[in-house]
């Protein structure tokens, strides 16, 4: 018998614990991506002197593997005197990588704001800060929530990369379990099944959100 139910049930609680680390990394990484992505998108609107270097940085981060960026942050930052534990370095890399994707999403949202909204804000003598905070962002962000949600799921599926710097998330835990018992079938298959289940559930949730937003923001 290739699949041992007894062993699978025995390791399930251990994997459940590791799943919490995976979810923590996902949520923290995405919180950073969502905020930093918006910063990138707004910086890109502030004229070519700021926009150009930001665009280059975004292009560099988007075009290179996340794994290399994780190694980079984990091994390079200590040389500048910033020593991070593996979890923090991993979350920062995930956040930075997905911030560049989120920046494109926000840009689409910002470009969809009619010019008149900007002109009206100038006519009302609102400061740039007030214009963004009270006029532009409340209109630009809700329509882009579903695509942001897709990136949340994508980021979630990239968290196993943190196992490369020995963060004890799902994949690393499964590998350790496998190397202890020489049985890889159950741990790795269970990790795959857990990812599939969580991805399908979150994809369904995003569709719900999309439908709810679609009702509110028909223009």
């Amino acid at each position, binding site marked *: 018998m290739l699949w041992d139910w007894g062993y699978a049930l025995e390791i399930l609680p251990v994997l459940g614990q590791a799943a919490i680390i995976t979810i923590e990394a996902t949520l923290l990484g995405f919180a950073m991506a969502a905020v930093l992505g918006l910063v990138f998108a707004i910086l890109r609107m502030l004229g070519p002197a700021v926009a150009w270097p930001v665009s280059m940085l975004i292009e560099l981060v988007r075009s*290179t593997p996340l794994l*290399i960026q994780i190694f980079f942050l984990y091994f*390079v930052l200590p040389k500048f005197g910033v020593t991070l534990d593996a979890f923090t370095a991993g979350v920062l890399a995930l956040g930075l990588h997905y911030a560049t994707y989120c920046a494109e999403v926000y840009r689409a949202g910002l470009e969809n704001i009619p010019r008149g909204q900007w002109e009206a804000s100038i006519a009302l003598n609102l400061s740039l800060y007030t214009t963004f905070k009270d006029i532009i962002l409340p209109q630009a962000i809700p329509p882009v929530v579903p695509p942001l949600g897709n990136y949340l799921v994508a980021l979630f599926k990239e968290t196993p990369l943190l196992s490369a710097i020995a963060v004890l998330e799902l994949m690393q835990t499964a590998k350790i379990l496998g190397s202890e018992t020489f049985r890889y079938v159950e741990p790795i298959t269970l990790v795959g099944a857990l*990812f*599939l289940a969580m991805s399908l559930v979150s*994809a369904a949730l995003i569709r719900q959100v999309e439908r709810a937003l679609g009702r509110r923001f028909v223009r």
Partner: protein
Amino acid sequence: MMGIRSIAVMLAASLALVAGLSTMEPFRTFMPGLIEGAWMTVRIALVGSLLAVLFGVAAALARLYGPLPLRWLARAYIEIFRGTSALVQLFWLFFVLPDFGISLAPFTVAVLTLGLNVGAYGAEIVRAAIGAVPRGQWEASTALNMTRGQMLRRIILPQAVVAMIPPWGNLFIELLKATALVSLITISDLAFKAQEMNQTTFKTIDIFTLVLLIYLAISLAITIGMRLIEGAASRGLARGRAH
């Protein structure tokens, strides 16, 4: 989205930077190993992309036009490979498959995983592109008494292909980035070489800067190639539509 000119400028700049750095001292010693690794990365990306297109087209056609069991199979394939992580898939094929008596070489596991993973995303692109061909094209083909196969081969797919090119370009970049994962199953690609040299020399900043630039150059080259193909393919279509 950046124009093709500025991408070409970035590509030239990153190549010049790599070439310039590789004449200097700490960098020079790393170059032979990194070039060897980059060649492995490129080979895996090429074979992986080829497999991804094959799996993507096959799965999309099976899902759209196959008999019912094949349709379910295609759907299950797409959901499973899109719903789980590429690294989990890679480890599954590498560590678990041997327990079922199937031992594949690491290179085979690598290109197969990347092909299957990216192919699942590609299947949705192919499906969307076929769906975007106007209904009238199907109706006209029916009126001309074509068989299903003839319609797809001569009328629908040639038009759908043009719409597929830009999203496939994005997927090829994703695939290139995902090739770094294969370093975790002992293949000495660019990421593996970087790790190996980092552990022996501790010249972390130098090595990883070079590696990032090399990956950037390969990505930009893919982007330019896909833009050129897109331009060539859509010119023919635009002429056809004008009349």
